[in-house]
């Protein structure tokens, strides 16, 4: 202990813990404590129990989570298996899948699906003219469709990595022991790959539970937890703090349970697979190849649909909510730049600050956790992962409850938006930096010290330069997800501080799809440009450290 107190790292750990305590634990505590009511003597829990609507919302949320997880796995797992093991025409298109989830913010996905399949949508009108009536896109049909096609990539990426890491020699060993190729694969590969598949499927489940954008835009008459929580927070007849904290607490509890389940699955399935030979992709010729290629292409095209729609929508004339498909204009974009450019500037400013602050904090924390372990760093490690269990809505509510008044009144400032961004992205930035640091041996730093350079200077001279590619990758990923952030910022923002996702959300709410598309196009551009710059110009592998 005495030697702990002497080291500067120990004090830095304490400082980082203090920051997290203030901006993460305090808000979470306020949310949980708020559900038990205050002076009035009411408890949010009895309130929720009395009104059947809330129980229905919880059940609906779980059902939606289950169905979407199942469908996303049914698409993601076969696609991963076939792309890992087979070669077919058009495979190259499938490789861009991970980028699509990044490029298309959820709010835009919801919007564009509506523009195609909504009541006045492009596709639904075309079908209606041929006498085909689709079920209303508002409600279960839309929720399940949009979320499935938004989230299947997570299962795809997780499964693909697991299958690629699998040593084919195990399969060959099974065959040499007398089982048929198909049976060998089933008996040997499935158990090894399954934990990763389950882990990514459970991740999808938590994302569905926490989803705000798609849920709010499409739920209509289906009560969902995240929607009711949001409504309790920003209701026009005055927000209900008791209700909002109770509903937020329920969502925290659900996600926590699922995350523990995920941990257990991953922990149980952790088997040492010794570095082996990856499988050579098998060429699929003839009709199976064509079939596979076209199915994969269809999935990719559906995934890309939002991008196409947003471009078309942004240049389509509209009078109020009525889109005049086929007539083109640049008026929508002009309006964004001349009459209402604030959301663009707000987005860029807040996201830039949040990215810089978040990355610096993540690097510092990861360095402490990986390289300067002391008795407090495990706690620090745990706390930085905590936001994974908190939906954006919960983080937003917590921040508003904690910094509305008091000694640190942040409500109404841009700082609270930046704060929400930083807290939400913290686990991802830290994980990114940590995995890079684990790959830099301690001896590099010690070599520098042994040559006469003090510890801190050694970090800046030899460790940091080695982290630069990873830091740039993390910054780009943080940026792309931050500019698209909606669920936390929509709760903490105040008039005049709208970001692009918030503006898009409000325009969709008013049915102004053309205007929303114009902002959407801009938002996608702001996301795509840094990605292109990083991958094409600086040749950085954005997913290098994503295990």
């Amino acid at each position: 202990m005495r030697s702990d107190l002497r080291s500067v790292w120990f004090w830095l750990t304490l400082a980082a813990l203090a920051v997290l305590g203030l901006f993460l634990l305090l808000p979470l505590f306020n949310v949980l404590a708020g559900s038990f009511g205050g002076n009035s003597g009411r408890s949010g829990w009895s309130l929720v129990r009395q009104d059947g609507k809330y129980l229905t919302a919880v059940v609906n949320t779980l059902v939606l989570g289950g169905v979407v997880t199942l469908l996303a796995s049914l698409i993601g797992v076969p696609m991963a298996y076939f792309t890992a093991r087979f070669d077919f025409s058009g495979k190259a298109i499938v490789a861009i899948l991970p980028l699509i989830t990044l490029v298309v913010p959820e709010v835009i996905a919801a919007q564009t699906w509506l523009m195609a399949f909504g009541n006045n949508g492009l596709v639904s009108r075309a079908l209606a003219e041929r006498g085909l009536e689709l079920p209303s896109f508002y409600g279960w049909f839309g929720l399940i469709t949009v979320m499935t096609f938004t989230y299947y990539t997570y299962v795809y990426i997780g499964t693909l990595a697991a299958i690629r890491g699998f040593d084919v020699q195990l399969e060959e060993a099974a065959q040499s022991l007398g089982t048929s190729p198909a049976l060998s694969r089933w008996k040997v590969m499935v158990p090894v790959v399954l934990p990763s598949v389950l882990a990514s499927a459970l991740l999808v489940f938590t994302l569905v539970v926490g989803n705000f954008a798609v849920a709010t835009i499409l739920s209509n008459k289906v009560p969902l937890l995240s929607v009711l929580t949001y409504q309790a927070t920003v209701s026009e007849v005055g927000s209900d703090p008791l209700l909002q904290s109770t509903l937020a607490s329920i969502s925290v509890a659900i996600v926590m349970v699922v995350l523990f389940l995920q941990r257990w699955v991953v922990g149980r399935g952790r088997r040492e697979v010794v570095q082996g030979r990856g499988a050579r992709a098998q060429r699929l010729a003839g009709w199976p190849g064509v079939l596979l290629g076209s199915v994969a292409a269809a999935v990719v095209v559906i995934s890309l649909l939002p991008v196409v729609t947003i471009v078309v929508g942004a240049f389509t004339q509209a009078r109020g909510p009525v889109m005049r498909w086929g007539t083109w204009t640049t008026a929508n974009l002009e309006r964004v730049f001349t009459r209402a450019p604030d959301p663009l500037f707000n987005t860029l400013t807040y996201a830039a600050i949040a990215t810089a602050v978040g990355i610096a904090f993540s690097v510092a924390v990861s360095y402490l956790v990986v390289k300067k372990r002391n008795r407090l760093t495990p706690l620090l490690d745990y706390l930085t992962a905590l936001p994974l269990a908190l939906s954006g809505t919960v983080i937003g509510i917590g921040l508003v409850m904690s910094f509305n008044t008091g000694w640190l009144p942040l409500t109404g400032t841009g700082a609270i938006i930046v704060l929400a961004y930083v807290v939400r992205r913290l686990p991802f930035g830290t994980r990114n930096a940590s995995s890079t640091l684990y790959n830099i041996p301690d001896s590099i730093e010690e070599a520098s010290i042994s040559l006469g350079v003090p510890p801190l200077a050694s970090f800046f001279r030899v460790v940091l330069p080695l982290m630069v590619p990873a830091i740039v990758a993390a910054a780009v990923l943080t940026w792309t997800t931050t500019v698209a952030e909606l669920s936390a910022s929509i709760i903490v923002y105040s008039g005049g501080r709208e970001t692009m996702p918030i503006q898009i959300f409000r325009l969709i709410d008013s049915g102004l799809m053309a205007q929303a598309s114009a902002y959407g196009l801009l938002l996608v551009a702001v996301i795509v440009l840094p990605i292109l710059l990083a991958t094409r110009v600086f040749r950085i592998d954005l997913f290098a450290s994503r295990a």
Partner: protein
Amino acid sequence: MGIRIDSLAVAYDGHRVIDGLSLTIERGSFFTLLGPSGCGKTTLLRTLAGFVQASAGRVHFGTHDVTQRPAHRRDIGMVFQDYALFPDKTVFDNVAYGLRARRQDESTIQRKVGQALERVGLQGLDKRHPAALSGGQRQRVALARALVIEPQVLLMDEPLSNLDAKLRLQVRQTIADLQAEAGITTVFVTHDQDEALALSHRIGVMNQGRLEQVGTPAQIYREPVSAYVADFVGAANLLPVVLGQPVAAGGSTAVPVGAVEVAAHAPVAVPAGAATLVARPEDITLGTPQPGALNGRVARRQYLGDKTSYRVDLGSGLQLDVDSHGDGHDRFMPGTEVALQLVPRRTLVLGR
């Protein structure tokens, strides 16, 4: 500059890794810490470097107490097992790193780095990055980088263990030549007895955080003070025996083995009672069986070219490994009855 370690202790989480260790390493000498993994040798080296804090005891470099001095001010050169070259810097910049930290002027740096690379045989590779070098070349760069700053003390942590057998011999020779030339006090950590015997002026054999024996390579090999050292350095047959009376240090005695008695030498005093008889396989010769001799039957035979390795069954559960050299060393077939002759001066008796 010599090194003096007094009653050093190092503890991790209350567990003592180094336990009251004292040692003096002479100025300009090549000292090797030898032991199995987990014996504390690397911890001891890292304590000398300043990367590990002593929980008790003192470390002196020359007349200076450096126990509390941080690593970057100890004026050491260190060579790591995984080379620890800076991957983003060229060979030149790697070697120049310590000189730049010492703010030497650029022309001096040019000259010294050039000389250092020449000494390790890497001239002309100065613009390469570490990734473009072979393992042996990388370890030579690491050596040059540690030596170019002309440190007071050179510390090497298993520098050869990541190299293949042939390279290991080459780099081993480079290390020996450089150390002799520069005359820097060197502490070398290894678990490889061949390396230790070949390179060192003196060796310290470590066991569970303590020094079991310190001595020249010949002393360690020929006069081990414990069965542990005898077993760890080189191959040895260890037979449990019982002594009728104590033996003084340097004395000799007849030790009963089965029905016969074997003459043995005691490097340190051995009390009466349970003891260990130590005989190296190459110090036993085989002949035709005779009455009154230590007789046995060949249980296993391995032909190795320059010698043949036998395992001989003495009956009553006792077995001895024997290496035969010279003409016809492979002539005893399994099942053959043989007599064993132990070289008296080289057969040791040690306490248990």
